[in-house]
């Protein structure tokens, strides 16, 4: 075992603050980023939980939840593509949910086909729920939104834009940031939103398509973009994306255009700073405590760089120890957050990145701690 690791284990109480500080930083960064990813993954639920490969959108659309109507006949633009197997209309727009108890709540009305092969129906809509939605005015909501909508559950009625609707079922895990998702049929969506849609032939928000071979989607998207540019150089009539592109675009819109992403990023940065300060102070104190021992080594001719390497090695092991403690802690806290309704996504890249950033921070803290080696002068050992 290396001397640094031996010392770290023997003096673990002394190094504990540094290890915990590294762990704290890693947990904070991973959780903040995971919360961020989880939070904004909600914004792309309509894309990520459906079967479409291609989304044809209004021009300059920023996010899936802020789109204007487009003509229904845009269906033919997608249907004419040889790689496309299926395409359909999809409606999504904001509405005003009038609460039975008074007041109103912004909601997002999503209207889709309800057949088994529907591209726009979220996968959480079971065949039974889709059958129930064929009733005019029937809606399905997420079970976490009952309080926001001030309703009791299945069978409750409400009003959207002056149109009466009835809750016929609930799904789980589809909580929204902006306003509760209200899932319904195309017909119900048009009835509820018709007064907000103009002109008469603009009866869709998106046109969805599915390719025979999913790998063909990017090529279809590129072709449609080129065709639109060639035909309408100065005034594009549409935007078209693959599902993954549109999902990322929607999330990034919420990340950068809202202050939530900046606030969470700031918190993560502060966590890193706190971790760096505590870790460097811990290492400084540990090195200062051994200054006489290091002075003997220097008297014996051991070069200073060797001692510096020992300090850096200690900071590396402090970092590794902190990261090892952080991983199970992150998963525990993510589970607790999920119980409270906050989604935390922890992809392997995020965990690896958090660990790497924190480890670099710990090693750099070792550099700051090396100023204690300046106190090492063999002459201090003499009376």
């Amino acid at each position, binding site marked *: 075992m290396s*001397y640094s690791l*031996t*010392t770290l*284990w*023997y*003096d673990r109480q002394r190094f504990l603050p540094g290890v915990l500080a590294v762990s704290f930083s890693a947990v904070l960064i991973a959780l903040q980023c995971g919360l961020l990813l989880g939070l904004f993954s909600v914004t792309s639920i309509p894309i990520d939980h459906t079967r479409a490969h291609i989304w044809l959108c209004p021009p300059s659309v920023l996010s899936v939840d802020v789109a204007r109507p487009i003509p229904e006949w845009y269906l033919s633009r997608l249907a004419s593509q040889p790689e496309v197997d299926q395409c359909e209309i999809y409606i999504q727009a904001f509405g005003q949910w009038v609460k039975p108890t008074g007041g109103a709540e912004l909601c997002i009305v999503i209207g889709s086909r309800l057949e088994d092969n529907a591209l726009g129906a979220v996968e959480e809509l079971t065949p039974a729920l889709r059958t129930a939605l064929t009733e005019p005015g029937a809606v399905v909501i997420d079970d976490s939104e009952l309080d926001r909508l001030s309703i009791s559950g299945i069978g409750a009625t409400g009003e959207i834009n002056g149109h009466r609707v009835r809750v016929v079922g609930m799904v789980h895990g589809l909580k929204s940031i902006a306003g509760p998702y209200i899932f319904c049929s195309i017909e119900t969506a048009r009835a509820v939103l018709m007064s907000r849609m103009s002109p008469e032939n603009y009866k869709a928000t998106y046109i969805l398509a599915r390719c025979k071979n999913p790998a063909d989607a990017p090529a279809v998207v590129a072709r449609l973009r080129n065709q639109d540019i060639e035909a309408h150089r100065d005034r594009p009539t549409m935007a078209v994306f693959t599902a993954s592109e549109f999902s990322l675009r929607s999330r990034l819109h919420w990340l950068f255009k809202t202050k939530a992403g900046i606030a969470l990023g700031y918190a993560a940065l502060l966590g890193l700073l706190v971790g760096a300060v505590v870790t460097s102070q811990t290492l400084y104190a540990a090195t200062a405590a*051994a200054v*006489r*021992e290091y*002075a*003997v*080594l*220097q*008297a*014996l*001719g*051991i*070069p200073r760089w*060797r001692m510096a390497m020992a300090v850096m090695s200690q900071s590396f092991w402090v970092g590794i120890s902190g990261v090892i403690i952080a991983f199970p802690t992150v998963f525990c806290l993510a589970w607790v957050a999920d119980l409270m309704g906050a989604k935390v996504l922890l992809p392997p890249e995020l965990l690896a990145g958090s660990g790497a950033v924190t480890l670099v921070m710990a090693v750099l803290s070792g550099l700051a701690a090396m100023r204690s080696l300046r106190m090492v002068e*063999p*002459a201090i*050992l*003499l*009376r």
Partner: protein
Amino acid sequence: MMDDLPRTTPTLQGRNLTRTFGEGEVKATALDGVSLELCPGQISLLMGPSGSGKSTLLAVLSGLLRPTSGQVVSLDEDLWKMSDRERERFRLRYCGFIFQGYNLFPALSARQQLEMVLRWGEGTHFREARRRSDEMLSLLGLGKKSHLRPAEMSGGEKQRVAIGRALIKEPMFCFADEPTAALDWAHGEQVVELLRTAAHERGSTILIVAHDHRVIPYADRLFYLEDGTLKDPELAESLPHATGSGRHSAYSRNDL
């Protein structure tokens, strides 16, 4: 190299050494024109009252503290004309040190304390460093205690580990500052015996700074420092327990 040098040829010479601290009204002179010579295979004992400059002289002679003026010639090299890096390499190759406090790393075993010097200093391979460390610890009577940490050892054992750390490199010079001060005499005598073995059997040049007059009989040469200058060593020898044979009075022999 130690075997090649005649025992009467000095390996270390201090010439007209002066060292002051502070300036103006608070200026203090720790060494005032001190000159001496140390020879291989001998234990030289430097004594004197507290504040006489003994530790300062040891530091200057060993390359740890720069003199204000004067010269230190060691193995025909002017020690204080070297760069810091050259002096560091000189100490690495030729010098061992024993200090009053053991200054052992609390987390490391006796074996690891010695291995560290070889691996970090000479770049010795792990297995060779272990072998030499175990050999040295056996010589020091600590063969069965090589795995113990300082907290598990007595004061005498710790100081023997410190001696082992100083001698593991087989240095030409060994500088010891009050090596027996923190020990009872039974253990202190062991320490001095080890240093005498290093001098007489290996030919090392040993300089011990000590207050303890019981060390005098073990010394081959005696220096007495008072107020920064060397005085007649008889001043130290006139005290009780100061018996000995074959010891030379360095004051009378040196043409200072």
